[in-house]
């Protein structure tokens, strides 16, 4: 299968500017100024069926067409490189191995939206990817590909590289904007959407690193070609991140719509020690879990949604037969309890209580009513909050006990306990304090 972005994922270093140009790099960025006006470029991206690869899968061209160009205010481009969805590690590879591809994609997106200043928000823990990307930006400035009159055209583009400081919620696009403005990352009520009122009150385009990195390919080889690579309304390929109990974990660039079975058994080498598959998280931690019987499915936004899960960020986490689903759910909900920003009560309290109940169960003190209580809390967590973090937490919370109910019942009945919850490890929630939910005051 042909590789697009991932053909650059070789060796330990970045493709420097010279190497990238030798490979045809920045050809697409030069081309657009003569070939397209901004509107025409948006139409081209629409035709490619490129979807947002940060998690929501929103059609990129359509998002751009919502940006008002007559407000008298500048339009900003913000690149989401916060990569916090557990199970996801693809953007790190782009920043690390081929930073110029992202810069080229940014130039294309900027031109389509009349942007002259762009920010890249990189998660704070990505120290080396940050250094490599910043170096690439410096090199691009030095060669006149950023700054004033880029490529000798009448077009200016400035890029500012900004680092986060450790908060999953800052991957949510409006939490990210708040953080970029120098505040804690409390997501904003929508509407207005960032396209209309975004960074510093101005219209703002927010896209994921990977989404933008496909733009040079679309320009070079055509929107129709890209659209045909994927499935219906899901153009192109994406970087699937496969981790957990497979023989060959890693980043695999595959067409949207590829079979999950094929991905696990052929591409990622199958299950370690040839054990049996138990379950798969198909699109980052926030996607509803699929049982082993549900893997004959095409991995695109629409098919996974129809199956009650989501394609999300492309993080595929594989669980083999040895896994305790109760412990896996406790670990999962501990993440949300830790990362809830605390702004909305259903999320702050809900994730805190759920984690408290689950760690009671994995501590060997589960009660028979706990399964019911989890479902009850779950029922008020979805759709009741400012952002989608709680909806993301509700997906595993609903699907694990639904699909593996007998395991939860047995775990409680037999008073099993987990290594992750032994005394001396941590008392549940003691260090969970960001949103100061229930979990914090145990």
């Amino acid at each position, binding site marked *: 299968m042909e590789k697009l972005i991932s053909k650059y*994922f070789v060796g330990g270093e970045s493709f420097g500017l010279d190497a990238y140009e030798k490979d045809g790099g920045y050809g697409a960025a030069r081309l657009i100024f003569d070939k397209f006006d901004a509107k025409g470029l948006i139409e081209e991206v629409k035709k490619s069926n490129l979807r947002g690869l940060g998690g929501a899968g929103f059609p990129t061209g359509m998002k751009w067409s919502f940006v008002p160009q007559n407000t008298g205010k500048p339009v900003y481009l913000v690149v989401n490189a916060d990569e916090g969805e*557990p199970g996801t590690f693809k953007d790190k*590879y782009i920043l690390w191995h081929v930073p110029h591809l992202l810069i080229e994609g940014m130039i294309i997106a900027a031109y389509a939206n009349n942007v002259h200043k762009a920010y890249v928000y990189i998660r704070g823990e990505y*120290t080396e990817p940050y250094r490599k990307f910043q170096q690439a930006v410096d090199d691009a400035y030095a060669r006149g590909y950023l700054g004033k009159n880029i490529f000798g055209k009448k077009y200016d583009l400035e890029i500012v590289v900004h680092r986060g400081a450790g908060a999953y919620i800052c991957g949510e696009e409006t939490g990210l904007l708040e953080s970029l403005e120098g*505040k804690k990352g409390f997501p904003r009520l929508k509407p207005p959407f960032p396209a209309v009122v975004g960074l510093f009150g101005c219209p703002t385009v927010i896209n994921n690193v990977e989404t933008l990195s496909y733009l040079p390919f679309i320009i070079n080889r055509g929107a129709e070609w890209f659209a045909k690579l994927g499935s219906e309304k899901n153009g192109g390929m994406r970087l699937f991140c496969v981790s957990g109990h497979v023989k060959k974990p*890693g980043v695999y660039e595959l067409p949207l719509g590829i079979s999950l079975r094929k991905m696990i058994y052929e591409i990622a080498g199958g299950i370690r020690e040839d054990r049996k598959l138990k379950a798969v998280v198909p699109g980052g931690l926030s996607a509803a879990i699929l049982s082993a019987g549900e893997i004959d499915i095409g991995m695109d936004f629409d098919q996974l949604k129809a199956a009650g899960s989501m394609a999300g960020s492309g993080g595929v986490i594989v669980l083999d037969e040895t896994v305790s689903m109760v412990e896996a759910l406790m670990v999962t909900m501990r993440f949300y309890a830790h990362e809830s920003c605390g702004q909305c009560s259903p999320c702050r309290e809900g994730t805190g209580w759920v984690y408290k109940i689950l760690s009671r169960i994995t501590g060997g003190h589960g009660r028979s009513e706990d399964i019911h209580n989890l479902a009850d809390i779950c029922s008020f967590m979805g759709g009741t909050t400012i952002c989608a973090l709680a909806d993301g937490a509700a997906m595993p919370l609903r699907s694990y006990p639904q699909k593996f109910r007998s395991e939860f019942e047995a775990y409680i009945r037999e008073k099993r306990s987990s290594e992750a919850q032994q005394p*001396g*490890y941590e008392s549940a929630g003691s260090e969970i304090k*960001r949103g100061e939910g229930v979990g914090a005051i145990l």
Partner: protein
Amino acid sequence: MNQELISKIFVPEIKKKTDALVARYETRRASILEVLRLLMDYYGHLTLEIEEAVAAYLGIPPIDVREVVTFYTLFYTAPKAKKRFNVCRTLSCHLMGSDKMIRYLENKLGIKTGEMTPDGEWSLHAVECLGACEIAPMLQFNDDRFCGHLTEKKLDELIESAKKGEQKTSSGKKQAAV
């Protein structure tokens, strides 16, 4: 009083760097994450005095700085250990044995998760997904280098090399696991 505090914290070298950071943004406040990081790198951790100076310098209330400092996990408000292990414990790492790695480090260092050794040399933290699940179980050393495919033997080696003060930066080969 503010002016005094500002010149105490923003010594010439730091002031110059701060001004360059501030100049990148539309508002002074937007530079705060980068400015706090700069000050933390220089002073080791963020004190209330530093927070106040930042508030005065960026022209925002001290409570707003406090909110930011306490919201994000990468800001230290107390002295940090010289050698810090942040072990990831989210799902992919959990599946690959992060609990065992954490327990091993606890025993080896004689501290519990979240603690620092009394001599201030070592600390151990459990953290959430660091975006390196392909090399699970993994940890981040001193908030910089990623170390993956952890085993007890690897942890022993890591401790030994940290003792010798080998300050390797992250090596691409280690992370590029495809």
